[in-house]
């Protein structure tokens, strides 16, 4: 019985489906299959198929990048928030987004890819993040629409991920979902106050909802027939519901909530279909979605430039902290030796 270090990151293992598995890999695959069949959890040091690891590194790191880039549209509004209370709330929310990014990077790191590698991928434009953050936040009401619709869609997507088969991902999601509910409520409250304000404020709230409705629905990803990876993710118990299923569920929730706001959703086709028990919404512009993902959204260049700038401006802090730690450690050794 060998004791193992926590940090000895497991190397990607040869679990290629198309080739004959070695005896150890076959045993690993059987164990993995049993855990998935029991709807139990895979932990970092367990054997796992190469494709499962790869899928998770991609999904969890994209999720982490989204949290980090997602700080920008709201951070831009901290200085312009209408009261000290709203500034404090917005700062807490932006701090949460940073925290969520770090929880997720930690979860992804347990799969054997370092945070620095993932950061490099983002900075070099090789990694994706949620398309929603490439839309501009033009008015204060957008802080409301982002909280209510964008964080709302994120919650609808993330609650089932709390049961994702990969333990560290599920645990990160539990923590994140707890914190996100404050985000959605504060956004709803901003819109509620505006919709009960002056006609101009009410118009500002409606305009924000009009602009964020369709992009928020697209956050659930392409329609099921165009989402080839979904099936495998569901077989692995990473994803629990399809994109379209989650999207229609979310539409149903906001269709009711918008009535409380006294606003409307910009969707002429929106209705509940008694026959299928699902919500029907308008067709979404998937060409726009693809264009934004490909880097051609209104703010892609700005978001990436800002992220690179922040990373470069932080370089001296990272280096100074490291130098200080080394100096302290050296001092400690000298004292110890004396």
């Amino acid at each position: 019985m060998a004791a193992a270090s926590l940090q000895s990151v497991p190397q990607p293992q040869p679990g290629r489906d198309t080739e004959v598995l070695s005896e150890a890999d076959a045993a690993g695959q059987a164990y993995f299959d049993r855990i998935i069949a029991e709807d139990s959890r895979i932990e970092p040091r367990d054997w796992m198929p190469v494709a499962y690891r790869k899928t998770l590194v991609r999904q969890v790191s994209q999720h982490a990048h989204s949290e980090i880039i997602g700080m920008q549209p709201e951070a831009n509004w901290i200085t312009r928030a209408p009261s000290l209370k709203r500034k404090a709330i917005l700062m807490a929310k932006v701090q949460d987004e940073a925290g969520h990014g770090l929880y997720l990077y930690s979860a992804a790191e347990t799969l054997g890819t370092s945070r620095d590698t993932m950061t490099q991928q983002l900075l070099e434009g090789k990694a994706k993040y949620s398309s929603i953050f490439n839309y501009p936040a033009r008015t204060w009401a957008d802080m409301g629409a982002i909280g209510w619709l964008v964080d709302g869609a994120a919650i609808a997507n993330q609650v089932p991920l709390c049961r994702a088969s990969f333990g560290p991902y599920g645990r990160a999601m539990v923590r994140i979902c707890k914190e996100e509910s404050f985000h959605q409520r504060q956004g709803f409250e901003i819109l509620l106050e505006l919709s009960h304000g002056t006609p101009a404020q009410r118009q500002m709230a409606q305009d924000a909802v009009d602009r964020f409705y369709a992009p928020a629905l697209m956050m659930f990803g392409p329609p099921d027939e165009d989402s080839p990876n979904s099936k495998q993710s569901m077989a692995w118990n990473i994803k629990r519901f399809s994109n379209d299923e989650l999207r229609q569920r979310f539409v149903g929730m906001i269709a009711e909530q918008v009535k409380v706001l006294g606003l409307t959703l910009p969707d002429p086709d929106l209705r509940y279909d008694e026959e299928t028990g699902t919500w029907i919404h308008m067709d979404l512009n998937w060409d726009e979605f693809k264009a934004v993902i490909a880097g051609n959204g209104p703010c892609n260049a700005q978001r990436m430039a800002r992220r690179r700038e922040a990373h470069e401006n932080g370089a001296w802090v990272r280096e100074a902290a490291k130098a200080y730690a080394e100096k302290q450690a050296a001092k400690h050794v000298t004292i110890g030796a004396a």
Partner: protein
Amino acid sequence: MSEQTNIWPLWEVFVRSSRGLSHVHAGSLHAPDAAMALRNARDLYTRRNEGVSIWVVPSDAISSSDPDSKGAYFESPQGKDYRHATYYTKSEGVKHL
């Protein structure tokens, strides 16, 4: 960008949620030294009164049981139901036992 990767080591964070309870693993983070790891852990894992005390431990200082041995390492307690009170059924109905 020629920056060295992983310039800060990884730490595991344990949080005591209230007096009388054990520290429980909350997650991990990167930090240059223990003092910074503690500060970062406070900011990252206790933003909502989740803790009254924090431990940080360098990840490479933790030894874990070998994951390859799977169930075998924990086999011995299995089949030893007599270690549990529920094994003893004849006393059912007897009060305070």
